[in-house]
């Protein structure tokens, strides 16, 4: 195989690894006191002892809650093949009680090869769920309810949560409810009657430490030695990669990355960009790939928007800043125009444009989200009268003007004067 096609294959392999969270988090499952083992112990004990249980998995987005749960379920389904059935619900889709019951019935029917009718009413579905719970309990089969985005289920009347947890109270049922949420206070959102039926077990998922990060990088990026790739290529690839990992600049890059966001998802996006830019001719990853990826993933959108502005739009922004500095209460398009005129009177330039042209530039700024209206609906007033506020800060505006390539000197003078 030519080197380019080899490199392509390697890239495809790495990309599929990066898009597969189960692979990523399998590394964290080995140690005994990890969340994986705790979760596995808890679920397997409730399956074998035929008791009900509930647990919450909490942690910021992108820390592997769903992935670890999937790994646990994979293992458990292998160990106890016929004793578990899984129902998955998502808060984005099924926070409405009707939708949730319909989805539960649909998944139960799918699993047990029953016919599901879309015309079934809400009562039918509810009765079906209760009777299924009873039947499964009698057959010593545990039903696992996985509620993703748990905090969305806790909005409103929490009917689904109550009915699920209530059904678990009966002797005949065997169910485990696993809630997953990115809000660390998800259990505080529960109503009193729901909370009393909930066992307050929580597992916290946190972003990995530095050593964990290092292990994760090796786990993801090193090519496997016993694969279909030729031996020399794998050896060359892995050697270069290990050398990069020990490089001080690489460590700085990764530190820089985790300063703003240390979750695994952020790291995965960084690695994805680096892998996509792999040089296909040499077939190896290099330090430049990683450095380039860092700059593409750390963007400064407001400064980019400032660079895109035209000179007239910059004038409008500086006028708004001056109005703010003067602490004028009324800041709308008309007052900005007045300020613009006064600037032009003091420093006459060729940049004095007509009112309708300025209105158009004002609307462009609104589109770019550098300014926005203060009220939401505006009471039906036209654009010229509604109060606006600046969405960028003073240092950002200053920095943007400094880096603007043909910024008029007047604006610089005004900004320096304002301090």
């Amino acid at each position, binding site marked *: 195989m030519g080197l380019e096609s080899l490199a392509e294959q390697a890239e495809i392999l790495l990309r599929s690894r*990066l898009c597969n969270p189960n692979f990523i988090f399998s590394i964290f499952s080995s140690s005994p006191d990890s969340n994986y083992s705790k979760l596995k112990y808890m679920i397997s004990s409730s399956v074998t002892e035929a008791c009900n249980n509930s647990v919450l998995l909490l942690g910021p*987005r992108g820390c592997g809650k769903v992935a670890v749960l999937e790994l646990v379920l994979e293992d458990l389904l292998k160990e106890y093949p016929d004793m578990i059935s899984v129902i998955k619900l998502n808060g984005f889709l099924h926070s409405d009680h009707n939708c949730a019951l319909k989805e539960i019935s649909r998944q139960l029917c799918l699993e047990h090869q029953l016919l599901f009718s879309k015309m079934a009413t809400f009562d039918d579905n509810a009765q079906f769920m209760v009777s299924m719970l009873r039947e499964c309990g009698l057959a010593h089969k545990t039903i696992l309810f996985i509620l993703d985005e748990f905090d969305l289920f806790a909005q409103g009347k929490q009917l689904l949560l109550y009915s699920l947890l209530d059904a678990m109270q009966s002797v005949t049922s065997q169910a485990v409810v696993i809630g997953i949420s990115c809000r660390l206070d998800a259990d505080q959102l529960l109503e009193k009657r729901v909370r009393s039926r909930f066992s307050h077990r929580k597992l916290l998922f946190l972003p990995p430490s530095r050593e964990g990060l290092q292990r994760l990088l090796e786990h993801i990026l090193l090519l496997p030695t016993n694969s279909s790739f030729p031996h020399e290529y794998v050896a060359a690839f892995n050697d270069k990669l290990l050398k990069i990992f020990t490089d001080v600049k690489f460590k700085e890059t990764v530190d820089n990355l985790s300063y703003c966001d240390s979750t695994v998802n952020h790291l995965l996006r960084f690695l994805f960009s680096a892998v996509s830019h792999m040089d296909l001719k040499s077939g190896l990853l290099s330090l430049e790939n990683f450095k380039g990826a860092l700059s593409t993933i750390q963007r400064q959108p407001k400064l980019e928007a400032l660079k895109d502005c035209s000179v007239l739009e910059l004038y409008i922004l500086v006028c708004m800043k001056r109005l703010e500095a003067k602490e004028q209460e009324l800041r709308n398009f008309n007052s900005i125009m007045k300020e613009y005129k006064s600037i032009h009177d003091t420093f006459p330039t060729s940049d004095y444009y*007509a009112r309708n042209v300025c209105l158009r530039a004002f609307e462009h700024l609104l*589109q770019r989200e550098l300014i926005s209206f203060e009220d939401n609906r505006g009471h039906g*007033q036209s654009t010229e009268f509604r109060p606006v506020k600046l969405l960028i800060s003073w240092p950002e505006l200053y920095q943007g003007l400094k880096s603007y390539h043909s910024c008029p000197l007047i604006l610089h003078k005004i900004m320096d004067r304002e301090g």
Partner: protein
Amino acid sequence: MGKEQSPQVNRRTTRSSSSTTPNSKATGEGSKIISNTKSLTVNDLVLSDESINLEELINSFPHRRMQILELIKLLGPLNSPMIPLFVYGGASTGKTSTVLEIFKHLNRPFIYSSCVTCYNPRILFESILNQLLLHRKNESNGYSSAKRCEKPSDFVNLLRDALSTLIDSLKGDLGKSNSKKSVSQVNGKMIYLIFDNLEHVREWDKSSNMLPFLFNLYDILKMPEVGVIFISKTSLDTYHSDTGYVEPFPVYFPDYTEGDLRQIFLKNQSNPKLYSSFLDAVLGPFCRITRRVDDVTNAISPLYKKYCEPLDDTGVVPNKDMKSELYRHINPYISQSLKETFHVPSQPTLEASASKDKTKRKGITKLGVGESFDKMDFHMSTCAKYLLISAFLASRNPATLDASLFDSTGGAGNQKRKRKSSGKSMEQKESKEQELLMKGPGTFPLERLLAIFQCITSVAEYSPDDEDPQIDGQGADGWDSGLMSDVLLQLSSLCSSNFITKGGSCPLEGAIRYRSAVSEDMALKVARSLKFPLSKYLYRT
């Protein structure tokens, strides 16, 4: 017999027409039309039959080389999974066209839906499902969608099914057609979902979870054969959410610089050197106002016609003297055009200026605006006009002045009895008046509007009206009651045409307050058409 019947216009079958016996000719035509539109295949998910190579692609988008290469690298080799991408940049920077042309180059199947044409979740879901299920809305199925889908839960289930069937058929095609070589075959077994104009989703329903749902769609589906691409005008930090969402990977399309714009405009020009000297003169001033391609194009295309006017032969290459002469010719038009907003004129500009020379019109004709300035260009009934003026006055003047401006005889208040105030208080009053003007029109209750309306119309009766014989024909009373009876009707029609808006209501009183939404120019036009002395009633110190 066939020739006598006029060619039937193909109408949709309404209930009434389908119940009557259709004549054979119509059904014959109808079935012919149906058989002409063949059913969709997977090949239709790719943009077109011909493919373009990379050099052509980069050349067709000047100054987008970096972004095109970045996107191609992120899309990756054939059949490699992808994290969601987020393409963002200002308006008319070429995001949508670049993405679609890249897919044309790569020949990979994609589903495109824009959140402008699909303006609520149901239409968005159904549009995506129609494309995936290769369903075309036509007469036979009554222009309905393949599946009815309103809720995200149904959408995810149906989407999963549709995607798996499509991917299986792609895999099947791939296996089968290894021996055949057909040019229009799609590449690969991945399907890409493109969501365009994502910034409109923010306004759909503030309390719904539509945005986090779309951003998390890739994670919910858990299918590595699907790629998701979002295109938006604003950057990712303008998408607010309470609990956050999985962030897609950003790709930025910057606005074009002046040099970029120059190259873009010089493409496909018949006389590049002439156009380039034209751009030297024109591009600089316009780029100080805006660098959006559509705005600048609209502004400079009429100017180019003017620029070429003194030339007899537009194919000529200008030398230095010619360039300076042409520059002198075009200069006044540039400064005039800079005062315009960049709109496309509704009438051709040359005719407008020609007619200006012929007929001496009083109105100012600017380049591109052919209407005269002092006349209303649409018709309103007299009652509506008076109501509009009353609303304008009510919004413009503070309520405390009504008594002095409109006394019981209906005449304008005597403003002669003003005392001469000191200089400082005059300044204060002027600044207060300016403040009031800048704040915008105020609100007024219905009673005040009707009171002012009555005053004004009673004035109008007494003023001499020679040119309009109808008014003093019937007698003043008849006209007056005729006006009053449908004033509430006129008010509601003015509200629905947004001349008067319903402002916020006072929480204590609870009555609806109205606000006038017309500019002073418009009110002056209306008043002039009624020969009403508006300036006498305006609050001025």
